[in-house]
């Protein structure tokens, strides 16, 4: 029984390394993927909640960040990456060890 389990665990570990594990986050947050920086200025509300939010009522959201940064009357809790993460480096994150 033990031999079977060890053999299976070994096979799983070996084959897990076969798969593409995706890109590493070596680009700044603001430039990532489909950031809302491409949204027309009229679609962003500097007085909205949160500030600079995407106006989904008047503009058609197309990118993930148009939804994620959509204006809302709900509450949110911001996390200040630059202030709290010594290794943040303006969003250019180091590769995984």
């Amino acid at each position, binding site marked *: 029984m033990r031999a079977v389990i060890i053999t299976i665990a070994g096979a799983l570990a070996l084959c897990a390394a076969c798969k593409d594990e995706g890109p590493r986050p070596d680009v700044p947050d*603001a430039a990532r993927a489909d950031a809302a920086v491409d949204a027309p200025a009229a679609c962003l509300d500097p007085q909205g909640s949160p*500030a600079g939010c995407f106006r989904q009522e008047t503009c058609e959201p197309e990118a993930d960040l148009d939804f994620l940064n*959509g204006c*809302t009357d709900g509450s949110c809790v*911001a996390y200040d990456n630059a202030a709290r*993460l010594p290794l943040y480096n303006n969003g250019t994150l180091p590769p995984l060890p």
Partner: protein
Amino acid sequence: MMRRLLFPTVFLAGAAPAAAAPCSELPNPIYGLGGSASKPTLARISKALASLPAPDTATIVFQAPGACLGIYAVLNNTTITGTASYWDATGVEKTCDLPAAGQVLDFANMANSAVLCPLAPVPLPPDVGDYEGSVNTINLIVPVASSQRSISAAAAYFVFGFGAQGQAAPWTVESEIAIRDSNSAVQQLLGATINVPASKFAFGVNALSQNGSITRVASSAQPEAAIGFVSGQAADVARATVRTLAYQHYGQSCGYLPDSTETSFDKKNVREGRYFIWSPQHFFAKKDPVSGEIVRPEARKLIGYLTGTVALPAGFDLLRYQIESGEVPRCAMKVWREGDLGRLSRHTPAKACHGFFESLTGGTAARACPNGPRDCTASAPACNFGYCEVQ
């Protein structure tokens, strides 16, 4: 390329001495295998199925050794042995004994698609079907005694990808970081979200299960340093001991909870696209490659209920069970995505259930229509599940 592993005895590792009743003697057993993230929903559905009269009565018999192990077993025709969970008509979880020679599976279930499981072929072979269920979230949790309220994708990248070296205070004590293994759906989905492959969560302690993560985080002697991640269903039922952190994705300007507040259950930020980490449940079963019909009758019936291809028996209120167990049915979503964590898009359900969902979760009051569509107005003329909807 198919990387097929033949390991028909893999689950013998978890086999316990025979002590319970045979699973085969339960009413119409439906055998499943997968992760623990979906167990609350399966439990609720199984309770309802067990309460139905013949011939609709049924019993879901489920083992939860890990999400990816379910799809691997379907792919490889692996049988299951040992003991399994089932739920009686009162909803109590019990165990039964599987045949020593092995029981053929009816379905596999997990919170992610097969793409994130490294041994599964992409695409799946034509004799394996992938059927989507309702939505569940992945929640980052801390003890209620912690002062922390939010976390960003970058912070989670440092916590789970670097441990103490990541310097993402206060989560720098590796013995207080609860992780899972690379077969876990919650680790697969969180890893894909923050760009830490599930196999590289090397800094932390494997809590082994959803309940293990809850217990480990909740009972930490250093609550400010403790952190873990579980399914939304698990986090919701443990709110007395753990708190879900607001999550701020890469490029997002603020962090959001799945719900509108710490005390609500409305999943407002999931349904409207501000909370990033969610995925529909996936059910897998063998199917006829030509007709597309699910091969095993019991799986065909259960998955048919979930996908709407089989009429629900009288008294079987599936939508209610899904909502009450903490999931969001697709008909209550205002955004959708294709694939694991795929691009978001607006979603207009063909038969919306926003009002019904909110009636059960304490969201915005919707107009009820106890007398049918004549109770509704022109702006929301359809009467769906007792509430007026646009369509």
